[in-house]
C-alpha cells in the first residue's frame, strides 16, 4: 500500500520510454505499454484487496507554503479510489492490449502508445490525489492527454477540431472548478479532502458558501463528464481512434467528473440546493442525450450519446443521495461501455465504415464480436441479470425514494430509449442481409478478442457486487471510506424493477420490430407457417401503430432535441466564440499603428479613469 504511488508512475514510465525509444522499437512499443500497465493493474488489485476491511492510507510531503498554509502533495488510498484504480488500470490495460491489434500498421504506432501512457498516468494520478489542488493538476493533464489522443489523426480536420473543442469546452468547466477549489481553500485553509470535510462538519463555512463552492465544483464535473450544456465535445471526440473512445469515454476522463462529485460528497450533501442541481442536470442529460441517440447513423456517435446519457444517470444517482448507486453504475458502465466501444471498433475494423446503414448481417461473420456486443447491449439496456440491470435499478430506486418523481419518470423514459437505440444499433449492424461492400469481413485478431472477452465477462458479473439478492458487497466496502453516507437498505417498491424491465424489453422489442424483423425473413415465416399470416399481419399492424404513435412521437421528440442541441446549445457556444473573434478582429483593426492614436488612447484612458474616480469618489457632490 505504501508503494501505491508506483501505480501512476508505471504508465508515465511507458510514456517516457516510448517518447525516447519509440522510433526504434516500432510496433514492439506495444509490449512496453502493455507490460507496464499490466503491472499497474496488478498493483491496483493488490491495493484494493488490502482495502477490504483495511484502513485508509495516506502519505504526503510538503510541497510549498502559501502564506501560513502548507500545501502538500502525496497520495491517498481509500475504498473509493482503490476501486477506481482497479477500474481505470484494468480498462487501460485492456485498451493497450486491444490497440496492439487495432493500430497495427499505423505510422505513428509508438506515439499512440506513448499518449496512452501519458493519459493513463494522469488519470491514475487524479484518482490517487489526496487534495483538491493535486486533483486539479491531474485533471488538467487528463485534458491534455485527451487532446493528444482525440487529435491523433491530426491530418483529418474534424479530428483536429474535435481535439481542440474537447480541450476548450472542458476547460470552461474547469474555470468553475478552479474558482471553487480556491474559494474552499480560503474558507477552510486547506486543499485536503479530510480537512475540508472536517470544516464542513464543524460548520465553519456558511451554508451559502457551501452551496456556491459545491456548484462551482460541479461545473467542473459537468465539463469533464459531458453533462448539459457542456456535452457537445463528447460526440465530436469520436474522431479519435476507437480504442481511445473506449478509454476516454467509458472508464476514465468522463468518469472523472462523477468521481470528483463522489469524492467531494460531504460538501454536496451539506447543501440541498447543490444536490438538487446535480440531480436535475443529471436527469435531464440522461433523457436528452438518450433521445438524440435514437436517430444517429454513426455507430460511435450512438455510443457517445449513450455515454452522455449514462453519465447523467450517475449524476442523478449522486444527486438523489445514493452514493453507492452512482459509483456502482460508474463501475458497471465502465465495463459494458468499454466493451461496446471495443466491439464497435472491431466492427469498424472489419467493415471500414462507421455508418450503420451500410452495415448488416455481420452476426455470422463476426462470431466473437457479435455475441459480445449483444452482452454489452443487454447490459446497458438493463436486461435482467446483466450488470446494468442491477446498477440502473438502484438508481431508479434511489430517485424514487428521494421523492423526485419527475426525474424518476425522466429516468424511466431514458431507460426505454436506451434499450431502443442500443438494439436498433445491434439489429442494423448484425442482422439483415450483408451490405454489398462487405465481401472480405474478417474477425479481429486475438489481441483484440481477449480484451473484449474479459470485458464481456465483467459486464455480466460486475452487477453481482451489489444486488438485493446476494448482498451489497460494494456498499459495505465503500462505507469503510472516509466519505460517510447512509447505508440503510433502499427498499423501493417491487414494481420499480419490474417496470424497468418491462420498459427495457419494450425498447428491445420495438427495435426488433423496426429493424430486426425485416431481416428475419418475413417470407420465410409466412411460407412455413401460413396459418400465422394473420399474426404476421397483426404484427405488421402493430408496427403501423408503432409507426404512427410511438415511433413518430419519438422521432419528432428526438429531432426536436437534436435541433435544440444543434441550434440553441451549439449556437450559444459558437456564438460566444464568434463574438470573441469578432472583438479580436475589431480590436486589431482599431490598432492601426498610428502613434497619435497610441497617445490619444493612453490620455483618453487616463482622463476617463480620473473622471470616473472623481464621480464615484464624490468629488462633484
Amino acid at each position: 500500500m505504501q508503494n501505491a504511488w508506483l501505480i501512476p508512475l508505471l504508465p508515465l514510465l511507458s510514456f517516457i520510454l516510448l517518447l525516447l525509444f519509440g522510433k526504434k522499437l516500432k510496433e514492439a512499443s506495444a509490449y512496453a505499454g502493455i507490460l507496464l500497465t499490466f503491472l499497474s493493474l496488478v498493483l491496483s488489485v493488490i491495493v484494493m484487496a488490502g482495502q477490504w476491511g483495511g484502513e485508509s492510507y495516506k502519505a504526503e510531503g510538503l510541497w510549498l507554503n502559501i502564506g501560513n498554509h502548507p500545501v502538500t502533495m502525496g497520495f491517498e488510498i481509500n475504498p473509493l479510489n482503490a476501486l477506481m484504480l482497479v477500474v481505470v488500470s484494468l480498462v487501460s490495460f485492456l485498451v493497450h492490449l486491444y490497440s496492439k491489434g487495432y493500430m497495427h500498421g499505423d505510422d505513428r504506432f509508438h506515439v499512440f502508445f506513448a499518449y496512452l501512457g501519458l493519459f493513463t498516468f494522469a488519470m491514475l494520478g487524479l484518482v490517487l490525489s489526496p487534495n483538491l489542488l493535486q486533483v486539479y493538476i491531474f485533471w488538467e493533464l487528463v485534458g491534455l492527454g485527451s487532446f493528444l489522443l482525440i487529435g491523433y489523426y491530426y491530418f483529418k480536420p474534424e479530428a483536429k477540431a474535435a481535439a481542440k473543442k474537447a480541450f476548450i469546452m472542458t476547460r470552461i468547466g474547469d474555470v468553475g472548478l478552479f474558482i471553487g477549489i480556491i474559494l474552499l481553500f480560503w474558507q477552510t485553509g486547506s486543499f485536503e479532502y479530510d480537512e475540508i470535510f472536517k470544516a464542513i462538519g464543524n460548520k465553519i463555512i456558511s451554508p451559502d458558501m457551501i452551496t456556491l463552492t459545491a456548484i462551482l465544483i460541479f461545473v467542473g464535473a459537468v465539463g469533464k463528464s459531458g453533462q448539459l450544456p457542456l456535452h457537445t465535445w463528447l460526440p465530436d471526440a469520436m474522431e479519435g481512434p476507437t480504442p481511445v473512445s473506449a478509454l476516454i469515454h467509458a472508464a476514465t476522463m468522463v468518469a472523472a467528473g462523477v468521481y470528483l462529485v463522489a469524492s467531494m460528497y460531504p460538501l454536496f450533501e451539506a447543501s440541498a440546493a447543490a444536490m438538487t442541481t446535480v440531480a436535475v442536470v443529471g436527469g435531464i442529460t440522461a433523457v436528452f442525450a438518450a433521445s438524440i441517440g435514437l436517430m444517429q447513423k454513426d455507430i460511435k456517435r450512438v455510443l457517445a450519446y449513450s455515454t452522455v446519457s449514462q453519465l447523467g444517470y450517475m449524476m442523478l444517482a449522486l444527486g438523489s443521495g445514493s452514493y453507492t448507486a452512482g459509483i456502482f453504475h460508474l463501475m458497471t458502465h465502465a465495463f459494458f461501455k468499454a466493451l461496446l466501444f471495443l466491439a464497435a471498433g472491431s466492427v469498424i475494423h472489419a467493415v471500414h465504415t462507421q455508418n450503420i446503414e451500410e452495415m448488416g448481417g455481420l452476426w455470422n461473420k463476426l462470431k466473437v464480436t457479435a455475441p459480445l456486443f449483444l452482452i454489452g447491449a443487454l447490459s446497458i439496456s438493463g436486461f435482467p441479470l446483466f450488470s446494468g440491470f442491477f446498477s440502473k435499478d438502484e438508481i431508479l430506486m434511489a430517485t424514487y425514494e428521494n421523492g423526485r418523481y419527475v426525474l424518476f419518470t425522466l429516468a424511466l423514459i431514458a431507460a426505454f430509449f436506451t434499450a431502443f437505440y442500443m438494439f436498433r444499433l445491434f439489429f442494423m449492424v448484425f442482422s439483415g442481409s450483408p451490405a454489398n461492400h462487405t465481401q472480405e469481413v474478417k474477425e479481429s485478431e486475438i489481441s483484440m478478442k481477449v480484451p473484449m472477452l474479459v470485458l464481456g465477462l465483467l459486464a455480466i458479473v460486475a452487477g453481482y457486487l451489489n444486488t438485493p439478492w446476494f448482498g451489497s458487497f460494494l456498499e459495505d466496502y465503500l462505507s469503510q471510506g472516509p466519505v460517510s453516507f447512509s447505508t440503510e437498505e433502499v427498499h423501493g417498491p417491487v414494481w420499480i424493477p419490474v417496470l424497468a424491465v418491462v420498459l427495457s424489453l419494450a425498447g428491445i422489442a420495438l427495435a426488433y420490430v423496426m429493424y430486426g424483423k425485416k431481416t428475419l425473413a418475413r417470407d420465410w415465416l409466412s411460407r412455413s407457417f401460413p396459418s400465422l399470416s394473420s399474426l404476421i399481419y397483426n404484427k405488421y399492424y402493430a408496427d403501423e401503430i408503432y409507426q404512427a404513435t410511438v415511433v413518430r412521437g419519438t422521432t419528432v421528440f428526438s429531432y426536436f432535441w437534436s435541433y435544440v442541441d444543434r441550434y440553441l446549445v451549439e449556437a450559444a457556444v459558437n456564438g460566444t466564440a464568434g463574438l470573441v473573434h469578432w472583438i479580436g478582429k475589431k480590436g486589431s483593426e482599431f490598432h492601426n499603428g498610428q502613434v497619435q492614436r497610441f497617445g490619444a488612447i493612453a490620455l483618453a484612458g487616463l482622463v476617463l479613469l480620473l473622471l470616473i474616480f472623481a464621480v464615484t469618489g464624490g468629488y462633484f457632490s
Partner: protein
Amino acid sequence: MDLQTLTSMNWGIMAPEFTVLGTALLLSLLDLFMPRQKSRRILGILSAAGIVLASVFLFLQFSHEPASLFHDMYRLDSFSKAFKLILLLGTGLILILAYDYKMDREEEYRGEFYYLLLTALLGGLIMASSADMITLFIGLELLSLSSYVMAGLRKRDKESNEASFKYVVTGGISTAITLFGMSYIFGLTGETNLYTIGNALQDTSILQNQFLIAFAFFITFAGLTFKIASAPFHMWAPDVYQGSPLPVTAFLSVVSKTAGFALILRFFLLVFSSAPGIKGDPLLFQVQPYLAFLAGATMIAGNLAALRQRNIKRLFAYSSIAQAGYILVPFVSVSAMLFETTWFYLLAYLFMNIGAFAVIQEVTAHSKTHDISGFAGLYRRSPWLAIAMTIFILSLAGIPATAGFIGKFGIFMNALGASQGHYVLAGILVGTTVISYFYYFNIIGQMFFRPEHQEGRLLHKKGLLLVTAVCAAATVILGILPGTALHFFYEQFQLTDFFQTMEQK
C-alpha cells in the same frame, strides 16, 4: 559634502551596478578603437563576463545587512536583491540570444548592441534599488533611452526604424505623464524620498487634498504602465516588438517589464501605503476597483487581439500585454503574498518567455519569415526544439506541471484571498486564459500537426540551444517543485526591511 565623506561611504553596495557600468564603458571604448572590419563578437563575451561578475557581487550581497546610501536614496534591501537577480539573469540569457543573432547588413553595429544592453540593464538595476523619485526617474530614463536605440539598431530596416520612432514618441508621452504625476506628489509634500513622502502624506493638513493625492496616484500609475505595457499604455508594444531585433523584443518583454514592476511596487507601496483615501478608507484599498479595471482591460485587450495575429513577434507582444495584466493582479489586490507571487511569476515568465524567444529566433532565422506558418512541421524538423517550445507555450498558457501554472495559481490565490476578494477580476483572469489557449495552441498545432514547408535542418546555434535547454528545464522544475524557488526566496529575502528606513552606514 567633501571628498572624505564621499569616499567613506559604503559604495560596496553598488558593486553590481559599478561592474555593469564599467563593462559598458570599457566596451564602448573598445568598440570605438577596434578596427572596423574586426568582428565584434569578442565584445559579447566581455559583456557576458561583466554580467557574471555583477551576479557574483549580487550573490555576495545576499548575506549583507540591509544598507542604504544618501539617506535611503539608494537601498540594498531584500526587495532590490530579489529583483536584481531576475534582471541580471534575464539580461544574461538575452545576451546569448544577441550573440547568436544574425545582424546581416548591420553587423558593424554589433558592439553597440552589447553595451546598450548593459546600460539598459544598469537602468533596471537602479530602478530596483532606488527609493527616491529622482534616482528612480534616472534609472527609468536610462533604461528607456537605451531601449529606444536598441529598438532601432537595424537602421537599414524600415520596420526597425518605425519601431524605434514609435517607441520614442510614446515613451516621451509616458515620461511626461509620469513626471506630471510625480510633480503633484512633490508639490503636496515637498519631498523626493519615498519614505519621507509616505510619512508626509499622513499629515492631517494634507487631508483636504485627498483628491489630489488620488489623482497623483492615477496619473503616475498611468505613466508607468508604459514600461510594463499594460492598459492604457500598451498600444506601442505590438509595433515595437514586431520591428525590433528579436533579442531586443525579448529584452523589452522580460527585463524591461520586470524593472517596471519593481518600480511600480516600490513606488506605490512606499508612497501611498498609509495615504488617506476619500472618506476615511486607505487610498490603496480605494483605488483597487479602478486598478482591477485596468488589469482586466489589459488581459482582455491583449488576449483578444492576439487571436488574430499571424506574425509570431506580434502575437507574443499581445501575449506579453496579457501577461502584464495577470502580473498586475497581486498588486491590485495588495494581499500578504504580494511580493513572493509577483517575484515568482516574473521569474517563471523570464524562463518561459526568453525560452520561447530563443526558439522563435532559431526558427525565424531559418524560415526567413515571421509568419506562424514558419513553425509548420517543426516537430519533424527538430523534435527537441518543438518539445521545448511546447513546454514554454504550455507554461504561458498556465497548464499544470509548468512554472506558469504555479505562477497563475499564486496570482489567483491573491485575487481571491485578499481582504476584498476580486471575484470578477479572477473570473476575467480565468476566462481570458481560456481564450489564450486558442492562439497558444495554434502554435502547437503548427509544430505538430502541419506538414513542413521548409526543407533541411535548422542551424542549431549552440548558444540558442543552451538558452532553450536552460529555460525549458527551469520551467519544468519550477512547475513541479516550486518550493525550491519559493524556499530560496523566503530564505534570502526577508521582506520585512521593505518598509524600514535606514540610517546611512
